[in-house]
């Protein structure tokens, strides 16, 4: 095991970095897209609401692997040349955004209770009321569930291994296949994942309690 670490620390660290990098990009991307579609979902326009609903239901009910592989294999054929890391990160962003949309929507619903009407009555526009009154409160409510989404996101980023995305799981597979030390390699990979996810998960529980 120590042998494995000393000889393979470079690809492992590179993988860890790519996993973190991909997760952070996907988190930011999916927060923006997710909030956008959450706002569509609570819109008073029927058509807009339907668009929001369809987006969320589609990406919530199709496996991440199908989405990521689809981007990896189909997009370069017709649209643009993208590599595995990009394809995987886009897939991860779209997939997670549907979950975040649901979370944010639940958060907004939990604050509403007349506050929106109050703000509108006080002369604010709809977007102002959303921006200054509703969303800040909603985000406070949804921080613990969002944290859990982020942990899921880090775990789900292992799907990049299927599209040659050079993430931690991909490097782990290569090392395992190369050295044929399967279990020790995956043990180390597991510990590296836990280094990211475990503290986050305990912090989220701490937030939940307080």
């Amino acid at each position: 095991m120590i042998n494995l670490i000393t000889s393979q620390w470079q690809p492992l660290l590179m993988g860890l970095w790519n996993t973190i990098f991909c997760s952070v990009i996907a988190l930011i991307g999916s927060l923006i897209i997710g909030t956008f579609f959450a706002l569509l979902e609570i819109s008073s326009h029927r058509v807009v609401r339907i668009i929001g609903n369809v987006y969320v239901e589609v990406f919530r009910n199709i496996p991440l692997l199908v989405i990521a592989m689809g981007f990896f294999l189909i997009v370069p054929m017709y649209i643009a040349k993208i590599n595995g890391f990009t394809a995987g990160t886009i897939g991860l962003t779209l997939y997670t955004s549907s979950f975040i949309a649901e979370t944010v929507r639940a958060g907004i619903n939990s604050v509403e209770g007349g506050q929106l009407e109050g703000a509108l009555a006080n002369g604010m526009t709809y977007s102002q009321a959303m921006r200054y009154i509703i969303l800040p409160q909603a985000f406070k409510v949804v921080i613990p569930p969002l944290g859990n989404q982020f942990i899921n996101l880090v775990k789900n980023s292992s799907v990049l291994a299927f599209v040659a995305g050079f993430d931690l799981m991909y490097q782990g597979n290569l090392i395992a296949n190369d050295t044929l030390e399967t279990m020790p390699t995956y043990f180390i990979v597991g510990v590296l994942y836990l280094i990211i996810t475990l503290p986050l998960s305990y912090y989220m529980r701490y937030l939940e309690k307080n």
Partner: protein
Amino acid sequence: MRKLWHLLGVGCLAALMLVSLTACAGKSVAQQDVLTADQKANRITWGVKADTRLFGLEDIKTGRLEGFEIDLAKAMTKEILGPNGKCTFVPVTSGTRVPLLKNGNIDAIMATMTITPEREKQVDFTHSYFDAGQSLLVKKGSPIKSIKDLNKPGEVILGVSGSNSVKNVAKYAPKARVLQLSDYAQAMTALKSKQGDALTTDNGILYGMAAENPNYEVIGGNFTKEPYGIAVNKNQARFRNKLNWALERLEKNGTYNRLLLKWFGHVKGFNYQEMKR
């Protein structure tokens, strides 16, 4: 009521310990004699490919595995266990075959596996049953004519993770970037969607891919020798010797050549005269 919970807890712990005890009492895979066990069960479990045309491919119509390696494994099983001997085929990939052999899920690997010194540290090989060589598959009309053309920054080579060919690429084209996918179906699809400039693996597998994708061709000849061997666990000398014996008999009685002709006789670019035994 607390008592009940304590009881439950103790029960769970006891169950856990029982499981681990029986686990320790069970013989580890390396100690069991595979040949004796297989003869007793009248069954050999082979790890084979399910995504590689000509060697081991799942037929969509029947769900059965078909290919040169499948037929050879069937013939060898009959040699070893007698005409009523049965075989089980477990589909593996280059990534899963060795862990599955080591943990005893399969008895032997016959899955386009090259005999290499590194692998011999972990598993034992029989004599080679097929002499492949590594080559390249590119789209027709591609400027790439040989592995040398790929030894440039910016070139991307596709391979399968766990295969020996991706290791060789590091030797022959160190400047190129290598993308490793989980199996040949993925690698071929990735080549088609232009994720790489060439796909590299052994010629026999590439011929199979070129046969089903007429817009692609095998180029540059073989730049390595890749003898395929059947892998068994360490300390299974009896089983390995029996496999070698069966292979030799099949080579002598013409079965080997018949199977070779059946699967590769019609393949363009394949030299049957050179390969027959």
